[in-house]
């Protein structure tokens, strides 16, 4: 599903965010990406969302060499990846329903067809009753769940989450992580960055630990 081949990311100014990373994540895997801040977790995820490209090396997702993907194919690629952010990135003026519907509208689905999918998605995160509420009327935990509903509404094969519980207390965090677990159970490949190691002990899944831009340990070894 995901294959890094000697991927290096060097930012302007010469700092290496990732150094010669090679690994393969099989389809349907749940991977928790851990490591101290500045270790390269965000860069790793940004590459999967094609927000950043490798400076050297190759990156394959679902067989496509996305590191070399032309600019105008990026939108189509992104539609196949669900993204969840620490700050949820919901549109503040829109209702929960509209926020969740957005990826479908972008993908070209009519509003009528989208409606069913949106409600199913909101139902899965337990927020069907709050579909009309804008984000500011929702708690942080609820906002994050709307963000997750938006990420899964297109039924992506890959879901990428960057510190999705970073702003939440431990109890809510566990709820959110359990939600991810459920989607993984139906076959979605997931890469979730988190610094909350205590939480991971309760969840299982594979771990990938980065340090200083290199694979330090976890279930994918240190084969850099």
């Amino acid at each position, binding site marked *: 599903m995901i294959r890094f081949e000697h991927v290096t990311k060097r930012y302007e100014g010469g700092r290496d965010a990732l150094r010669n990373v090679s690994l393969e994540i099989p389809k349907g895997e749940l991977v928790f990406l851990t490591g101290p801040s500045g270790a390269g977790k965000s860069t790793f995820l940004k590459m999967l969302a094609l927000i950043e490209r490798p400076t050297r090396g190759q990156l394959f997702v679902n067989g496509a060499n996305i590191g070399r993907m032309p600019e105008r194919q990026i*939108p189509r690629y*992104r539609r196949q990846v669900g*993204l969840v952010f620490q700050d949820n*990135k*919901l549109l503040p003026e829109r209702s929960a329903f509209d926020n969740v519907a*957005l*990826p479908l509208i972008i993908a070209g689905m*009519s509003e009528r067809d989208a409606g069913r999918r949106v409600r199913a998605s909101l139902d899965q995160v337990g927020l069907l009753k709050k579909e009309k509420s804008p984000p500011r009327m929702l708690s942080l935990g609820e906002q994050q769940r709307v963000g997750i509903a*938006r990420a899964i509404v297109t039924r992506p*094969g890959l879901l990428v989450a960057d510190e999705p519980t970073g702003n939440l207390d431990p109890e809510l965090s566990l709820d959110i992580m359990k939600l991810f677990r459920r989607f993984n159970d139906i076959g979605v490949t997931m890469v979730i960055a988190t610094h909350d190691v205590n939480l991971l002990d309760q969840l299982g899944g594979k771990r990938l630990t980065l340090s200083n831009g290199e694979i330090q340990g976890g279930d994918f070894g240190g084969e850099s």
Partner: protein
Amino acid sequence: MVKFKAATSGAKASMQRISHYFGLHRENARSSLQEILHQPLASLLTIAVIGIALALPAALSLLVQNGRSVAGSMEDVRDFSVYLQPGMSMDQAEDLAKNLRMRALIAEVRIISAEDALVDFREASGFENAVGALDNNPLPHTLVVRPKITAEAHTLDTLAGELRDNPVVDQVRLDTEWVKRLNAILELFKRSVWIAGVLLIAAVVIVVGNTIRLDIQSRRDEIEVYKLLGASNGFVRRPFLYVGIWYGLIGGCFGLVLLVVSALILAGPIEKLTGLYGGNFVLHGLNIVTMGSVLAGGILAGWGGAWSAVSRHISAIQPQ
């Protein structure tokens, strides 16, 4: 990757895509209009600027059109006035008139006697008392000569010269020069209107472009989210283009209101003026074509301004 379930048949799918495409446009048009109405003050300023910028060249071109029609209707009037020397008798006037009437060039000669002229003058000028105080009539007899339509300008000039040499005649006034001058001035005016029109349309493009640029900047976060969710540049652009089109259309309507109001304000004085000239001049030009060009100009300029803004700024916004 999980793809969307394919529609049952290709034809149905493409029909759906087409109807979705139009649905999306309708939705974009609707939501951008809402957005404009949502912030009435800022939008009103933009719309006012656009309206004025569109109304100005339209008003100037109306002015030129009407001026030309005035000049056009005057061109046929080639009457000239022959003022006799003071102290000439009415018989001498009759003789000259008879002489002129026999010429092939002349259609009609009318005599205004000095007495009639004085009466007219007294009534029209309002100097009744002053005129009454005069011992004798200072006005000469006058012949108003109307040439035949077929008469050419240079033969009329020759005739005028001949009359000037006649000892009975004091002055000959041939009133075609001012029409030629008016036409020259109008031509100059017409070109100025073109220049003003181009500049003012450019102003509309710039104003709309700037408004949309600010709009894009204030919605940067939203655009980033769209792009993260896989929106193409085209998808992000479209609502902004509609905002531009709406600005142009509403601004154009406002411009038309300005034009109509100006025309109404001018209608009274124009009627009076034409009354004085004894003509039946009507203000024309504010027709479907003019109105249509104001609206079309507004829409095009609005769209162009929006396009100049989105093409520069939207692809530059990339999620970080």
